[in-house]
Structure formats: C-alpha cells, structure tokens
C-alpha cells in the first residue's frame, strides 16, 4: 500500500507530505532550506550533528529534521532566533572539539563545515579550544585520514556500509573519545576490507578524509555523486 499523504505546516505554510518522509525531506521537497551537516541525501540519516534542529508545536524539545518523521497536523518552525543560537553553538562546539585550522587545510574553500559556519554567522568561537593531540593516518596508499579535521558525522561509515557494502569504517569509543576506525582499529593501509573505492573521501564534508598528495585548498569533493549513485541503486532495486 502506498504511503498516505499528510498535511503539515512548515513555517506556517500548509504543505502536503508523504507519511514516510522526514521533516527535512518534506521541507526540501517544498523548497524550504534547513541547514544540515551530517546528512547526505542517499544515505540513512542518523542525526549526529544536530545542526538541522527545528521547533515543533506541542513539544519543548528541539527535533532533528533529518530523522524526525512527519505526522498529520504537525507544525514546524525551521528558523527562529533560538534555533539560530543553538545551531551556531553547535558549530562552535564542533570547531573547538578538534583542530580545525582552515588556513592550512586541504579542504579550505571547499569544506561543508566551513561554509556552514559562514552561513550561520559563526564569526568567532566563544568556547575554549580543546587542542587534542590526534593522529593522522597516512598509511593508505591513496588516501589520508586526519582525525584533527573529523567531526564524527559518520558519512564515511554509512557510505561504505550502504553503498560500497564493505563496511570498513566504524565509530570507536564514546563521547569525546569517539574515533573513526577502519576494520578492527587497524591502520587504514592495513584494513583488508577496504576496496580503495574512495566513496568515503567524496562523502566526507571536511578535510578529514582526503586524497593523498593534495596540497592546501586542493581537495575538492563531489558528494552529489554519492547521492546520484544511491538514487540509481534505489531505482534499480
């Protein structure tokens, strides 16, 4: 049975959505913009970054638009002073957690975290920087993993498991100790399950995963290829 249509309001506008859609999908389909970071169309949403939070009538909690399904009569606000404040804070906290130094980053100028910070008006960071000492895994012959630039969005984990079906990547440990690991915490160059396909690199929103040999500002990515590949696979299925 095809999914039913439901009526919801987004920023006051009455919109018809399918009941299997998330708030983000419904909003995007009706031309509304909600900022996102960990979300990549075509991969399973996980609500890792909390940038897409929205207000919904009837609850005090802020809901991640990428993982919250719509329901009949729902009324959602996608932009408000409160949301802007929370989203900005979220990005600031991402920036202080590890070592994001745009000026010397391979992805400078082509980074989703950087453009999001610009979009949200993050002109300064109000929290103390954490400056963790983190490794750079250069063991792979073609790619590099720099934990300093990782925001744990888990796009790499999802694209590898869902599209490449290799599931090289996982998230190890909890909270601030979380790290992306390949195989069972082997060095990437020694990870036997890796097919060297590079989808994780293309999906990564920052300079955490990059092609080897790319100098500062040289790493451009095309995550839209991941989306089109996922759609093509979905249509095939």
């Amino acid at each position, binding site marked *: 049975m095809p999914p039913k249509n439901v009526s919801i309001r987004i920023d006051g506008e009455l919109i018809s959505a399918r009941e299997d859609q998330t708030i983000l999908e419904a909003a995007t389909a009706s031309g509304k913009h909600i900022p996102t970071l960990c979300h990549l169309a075509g991969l399973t949403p996980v609500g890792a970054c909390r940038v897409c939070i929205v207000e919904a009538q009837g609850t005090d909690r802020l809901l991640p638009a990428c993982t919250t399904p719509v329901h009949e009569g729902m009324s959602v606000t996608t932009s408000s002073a409160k949301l802007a404040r929370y989203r900005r804070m979220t990005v600031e906290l991402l920036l202080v957690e590890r070592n994001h130094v745009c*000026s*010397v980053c*391979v992805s400078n100028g082509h980074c989703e975290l950087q453009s999001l910070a610009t979009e949200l008006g993050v002109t300064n960071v109000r929290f103390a920087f954490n400056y963790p000492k983190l*490794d*750079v895994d*250069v*063991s792979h*012959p073609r790619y*590099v993993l720099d934990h300093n630039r990782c925001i744990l969005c888990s796009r790499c984990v999802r694209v590898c498991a869902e599209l490449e079906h290799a599931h090289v990547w996982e998230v190890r440990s909890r909270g601030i100790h979380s790290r992306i690991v390949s195989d069972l915490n082997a060095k990437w*160059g020694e990870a036997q399950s890796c097919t060297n396909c590079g989808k994780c690199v293309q999906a990564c929103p920052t300079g955490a995963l990059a092609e*080897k*040999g*790319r*100098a*500062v*500002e*040289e790493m451009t990515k095309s995550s839209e290829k991941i989306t089109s590949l996922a759609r093509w696979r979905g249509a095939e299925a």
Partner: protein
Amino acid sequence: MKRITIDPVTRIEGHAKVTIQLDDNGRVAGTEFHVTQVRGFEKFTEGRPFYEMPGITARICGICPVSHLLASSKACDAIMAVRIPPTARKLRELVHAAQIVQSHALSFFYLSAPDLLLGMDCDPATRNIVGLIAAHPEMARDGIELRKFGLQIVEAVAGERVHGFGIVPGGISAPLQPQVRDHLLVDLPSAKAIARRTLDFFKRALDGYAEEIEFFGSAPMMSAGLVDRLGNLQLYDGMLRFRAADGTITADGIEGDDYATWIGETTLRDSYMKAPYFKPRGFPGGVYRVGPLARLNAIDQCGTPVADAELVEFRERFGAPAHSAFLYHCARLIEIVYALERIEVLLDDEQVLDKHVRAAAGVNAHEGIGMIEAPRGILIHHYNVDDDGAIVKANLIVATGHNNLAIGRAIQQVSERFVDGAKLTEGMINRVSAVVRAYDPCLSCSTHAAGEIAMRVTLVGADGEVLDDVSRF
C-alpha cells in the same frame, strides 16, 4: 653598572628586545639581542603528511610566505625525487624574484626610509610610513607601487598575494595565463624606473651617512650566499659559498643536501632565536652574515647587465667585500634592480606559458632538503619522513637566524659609539634599533614568532634598579 633594555625593537618583523649593560662611568660594557617569542613549527608539524608542509610553513611569515613555500616545496620535491618541469622551475624563480622586489621594497620604503629620509633623531611620532607620506609623498608612492608590482606577480603565480596556494610539491599548481603575463609586462617599465630613481637617490644620499656607514656593524666577517657555477647571483637555486672577510673564498659549491657539514646551530641564553655558525670555525668564531649585502659580497657578479654595473660601482665605493651593515640598504636596492631584470627575462620567455607545470610522485626518499635565498638570506627546510610520507623530523634554518651573531655584534658596536651616559636619548635608541633594521630581520620567521615588532629600552642600575625605560611602537 646599569642596564638598558630596548623592548620592543620597532619597525622590524617579529618581536625583539635589546639589553645594553653600562659600567659605572656610563660606558657600554656589553649588549645582548633577545628574540622573545617561540613558534614551534618544527615540533607541531611532526606526523603531518609532507606535502602539507609548504602550506603550513608559509604561515610562518606574512611578508615572505613565498620563501617558505619555495624552500618547503623544494624539500618536498626531493622527498618525491622528482625533477620539476622546466616551466615550473621558471615560474618559481619568477615568483621568487617578485617577492624579493616586494619584500625589499617593504624593508626600504616602509621600515627604513623613515630613518633615512626623516632623520635618526626625528620625532618618533612622525618617523614612520605615515610621516614619510606627508614629507616625501612621491617616495612613499614609489614604495607602494613597487610593492604592488611584486605582489601582482606573486598573485599571478601563487594564486594570492599573501599565503598563496599555487606553489606545490612537484612544481606549480596552475600555468601562467598569457593575458596575465602581458599585463605584468605592461607594468614592468614603471617598476624599473622606480628602482632606478630610488637607487640613484640613495647613492647620492649615502654621502650624508658617513658616520653610520663607519659604525653600523662594520666589523669584517664572513659572507654567505648562493651562487651558480659561474659565480652569478642565484636566488632560487645555486650552491652555497662562504667568502671570508678578506675576500678569499672559504668554502664553495656546497649543495643544499650538504648544509649540515658546514652549518652548525647553537642556542643562546635569553633568546628564542638559534644561532647558526660556520662549523669549521666553531662557535662563536664562525660568525657570518647572510642577506643582500652578504650575497653581493659572496658572488662574483650578479649576471644581469644593470645590476652588474651597479655592483661594480658599489664595490669601487665601499670595497669588496663591503662590511658596514648600513650598506644592506644599498644592497637591497641593487637586488631589486637585479630581480626586475630577471623578471623581464623570465616574462619574455615563451616557455613560462607552457601548460605542463607539475610533476607527480609519492614518497621516493626519506629525506628532503630545500635551500633558497629568501629576501633576508639563506633559508633551509630539512624534512625526514617515514615510508608513508608523515613528517618524522623537520628542521628549518631561517635567514635571520644566520645573522643572529652578526646583529649582536652590530648592536655592540653601535651602542659603544652612540650610547653614552645614564640618560637615554631618543636618537640613541633609534640608532640601536636602526642597525637591527638594517639587517631587516624577520624574527617571526627565525623563531618559526608573530606580530608587529616594536622596541623598548630599559636602563637598569648596577643594583638592579630601573633607571629609565623607553618604549616605542
């Protein structure tokens, strides 16, 4: 006994202070030059992929990021064991010559011209670029124009005027566009004319600086610079030559890879700047100078006609080798002339427009050394990497570092000549600062330190009491 501290030293790049010890009669007993900040680039780059080094080390300095980009890229070329395409080699020399022009113009017009044109004893409130614009607008305009010309070339090749991304391991990231080249050629005659009239002006003005020439760091010492096989001035490539104070060649033909055999490094009390020395003579006997004056002393000739004619005149007037640090200013202007001549040759060469500008390779050697002549002297980047290309050890020997001992001696000489009595005078402080400025030290680079340089002088009695304290920013 009293002590004078000049902290910070103004109109130089980076942070420094000078301490002058006075005896009971108010005579200078000793001087020390302190560089007060540490940067840590050699340490925090450990573990980074080697090919990120040019971008990271360029951030050492905003005046000559191109020098670090080039030295670092050369070290990376060595790790990749590639010979970069000839066009890339020419474009690198072009961007380097352009940066010499802009950096020397900055040193001469912005930092030192206020002393030279407005006078050492002029009111410090107007003894700066703003005062210069008011008093000598045509000279200030020339300085700005010349810098602009150099920076336009830097932008054309490196992508941006400061911290460009276009100089990369293996060559250059993008070819030079013909219309950009043509545009630069249009502006070249005006840059050459500025260099010509500034040099002519300064040669005439030098007669008025007999005392400074005699006492500004004029102790004879060794000069080091890069030369090619014919003894011509080389800024981008070339082999290291040491020429003794009496003019004989002490060591010659030293490749970058072999620098450690000839150059040792030691640390000094009360300064974050290391002091390199000429190893065969030990420390501190192996003191030598680098930079414009040292280069003109080390070479046989520049290799371009106008600069060579100027060099002949310079040597006739001041001797070969010339020793007064005050002559650094003159050497800088001659080098601007040389760099503009090289720029013309390179821009006229059709090969600079070739599209093949980058060689690609992985890690083919575990060690790479890049040596160039930065505007302030010899710059060496030395990296060791592991099998995967992660930096295991990085050593940077920066131009101003080589001059550390020489600057110290020059401060001593100027202090002995100009500092007298317990009460500091503004002109005295400024002469000590001016001799530091003559070397155009980039202390931000040499400590791998950031920000403006300013100078502060403190006068301390034998019992430790602060008698006087003068700051200038």
